[in-house]
């Protein structure tokens, strides 16, 4: 788009799409903001009186709010840590020439195709269940008492389940990045006297940094709103041990039929997501430039 005329025409052409996208975003957001200022409970019919910041006050003073906030950050951070480190290691492994490479790659990607509810249930019932699960069985084989993952380390268990789902995504993106590394660079480093570890840290890791940034940004957006895995495994419990913000909004608005309070929680979650996004962009977004 070189000339002014063509640029103006370009703007005109894409404006319908932009307007639809904008409405698509702004209408639900506007309604949520509007509801969050009303006293609006489905069990109490009648007027929806204006409530000011009452809903927000309730949400922030809820004893579950701070634990939920911390759980959210732990969940996101834990999964990011496991998937990026694990993804890099798996990508290195899959990049090696080996027998049956194609099949192995498909197998590695498979978890990504499993629905979150299904995979969480599979983990809950077939792996982590102390009676029927494979971990419990293994513990019995070695003669130690089985560990009840979901009640004793609920948040960690959910982190593991979610990390298992997202590991393929990270691996796949990092593997393609790794394959785009010029082999002459590695050979040059080898001639320069760099051993395998130096080659990894000085050549491969910097090359992967951009792909890792993409992985982290995309995953963060999805991980902030993890819900299904919590619902089908722990229901946010025991107590509030595995309740994140999304789940807190759900339990307040739907379990208590309080639309106003739920909306306020939703807005808080949106604001939190934006804060996290700004931090991430500041920290690693510069990798995406140039």
């Amino acid at each position, binding site marked *: 788009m070189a000339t002014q005329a063509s640029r103006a025409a370009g703007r005109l052409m894409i404006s319908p799409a932009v307007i639809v996208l904008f409405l698509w975003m702004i209408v639900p957001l506007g309604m949520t903001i509007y509801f969050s200022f009303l006293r609006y409970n489905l069990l109490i019919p009648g007027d929806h009186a204006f409530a000011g910041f009452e809903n927000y006050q309730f949400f922030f003073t809820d004893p579950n709010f701070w634990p939920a906030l911390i759980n959210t950050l732990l969940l996101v951070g834990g999964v990011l840590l496991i998937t990026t480190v694990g993804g890099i290691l798996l990508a290195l492994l899959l990049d090696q020439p080996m027998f049956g490479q194609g099949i192995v790659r498909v197998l590695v990607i498979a978890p990504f195709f499993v629905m979150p509810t299904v995979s969480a249930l599979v983990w809950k019932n077939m792996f982590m269940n102390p009676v029927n699960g494979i971990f419990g069985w293994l513990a019995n084989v070695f003669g130690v008492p089985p560990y009840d993952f979901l009640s004793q380390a609920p948040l960690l268990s959910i982190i593991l389940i979610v990390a298992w789902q997202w590991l393929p995504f990270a691996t796949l993106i990092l593997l393609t990045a790794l394959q785009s590394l010029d082999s002459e660079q590695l050979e040059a480093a080898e001639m*320069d006297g760099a051993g395998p570890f130096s080659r990894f840290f000085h050549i491969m890791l910097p090359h992967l940094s951009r792909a890792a940034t993409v992985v982290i940004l995309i995953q963060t957006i999805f991980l902030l709103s993890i819900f299904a895995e919590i619902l089908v495994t722990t229901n946010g419990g025991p107590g509030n041990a595995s309740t994140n913000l999304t789940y807190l909004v759900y339990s307040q608005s739907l379990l208590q039929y309080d639309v106003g309070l739920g909306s306020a929680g939703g807005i808080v979650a949106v604001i939190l997501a934006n804060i996290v996004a700004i931090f991430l962009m500041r920290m690693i977004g510069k990798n995406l430039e140039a």
Partner: protein
Amino acid sequence: MGQIELKGVTKRFGDAEVIPPLDLQINDGEFVVFVGPSGCGKSTLLRLIAGLEDVSGGTINIDGRNATDERPAQRGLAMVFQSYALYPHMSVRKNIAFPLKMAKMSKAEIDAKVDHAAKVLNLSSYIDRRPGQLSGGQRQRVAIGRAIVRSPKAFLFDEPLSNLDAALRVNMRLEISELHNTLKTTMIYVTHDQVEAMTMADKIVVLQAGRIEQVGSPLELYRSPKNRFVAGFIGSPKMNFIGGAEAAKYNAFEIGVRPEHIAVGPTGDWQGRVTVSEHLGSDTFLHVETQHGLINVRAGGEVGVHHGDTVWLTPDRSQMHRFDQQGHAL
């Protein structure tokens, strides 16, 4: 020191034998050029010497020490790649310092060496830039800088100038030759450009399909090629080959005459019609259609011959090359 000796070195990729058993002696301080057509195994041979590929058989000795099983870094050689292979996320300074850092040198020593290399190669003004912000010639110099800081026993170059434009190529050619004169380090240089080979080499190794066709100084190869392949490969424009009855007159299966060894005149041995005449100022290249086929002639710059003219050609018999049926020189 930088003496390299290959004894019976072979290389196979699966079933394909890319390099049949090959012997080669490279002396200390020599500038050796590997030339040959594309796919003849020049790069493979260089990578075998560097240690980036394993030999399938034979031994490689460096300074009298058996280096066949040594890792690339242990051999003490430095390589300049065709793609330069600079580290894109490091500044020029860090790129050049990388081999020294890997050798665990002290910071002060590294800085001194990098500054020295930068000065020798005129890199100082963009020492803090990234490779992406440099021109092709500058990148090439950084790659050379990264090679020289380690004071290697020998430099290995794999077609280092092929990504540069013609003018820059001439410049860099001179710079590399100068570098060799000052450092006096062994250099092995791969190219398929025979002008580079002729101008830079102390010793040229002509390869074809992994075999060494001839080893010698540029003038030796020009004056007395051992076979038809070398005769046709060295020299520009290419040697003219004539077979049949005309060659039989000279007791040969085929004769070869270089374009510069043919005289153009009103009378002579072969009559022909000029199809193209290229006036370069200093020279004129004539393409002459004769009864023996198309013959290239290099005449003086002032020759007034044009398209369609009929001319007579006389080869210089003392500079004529004769070949037998197998292409060996007689």
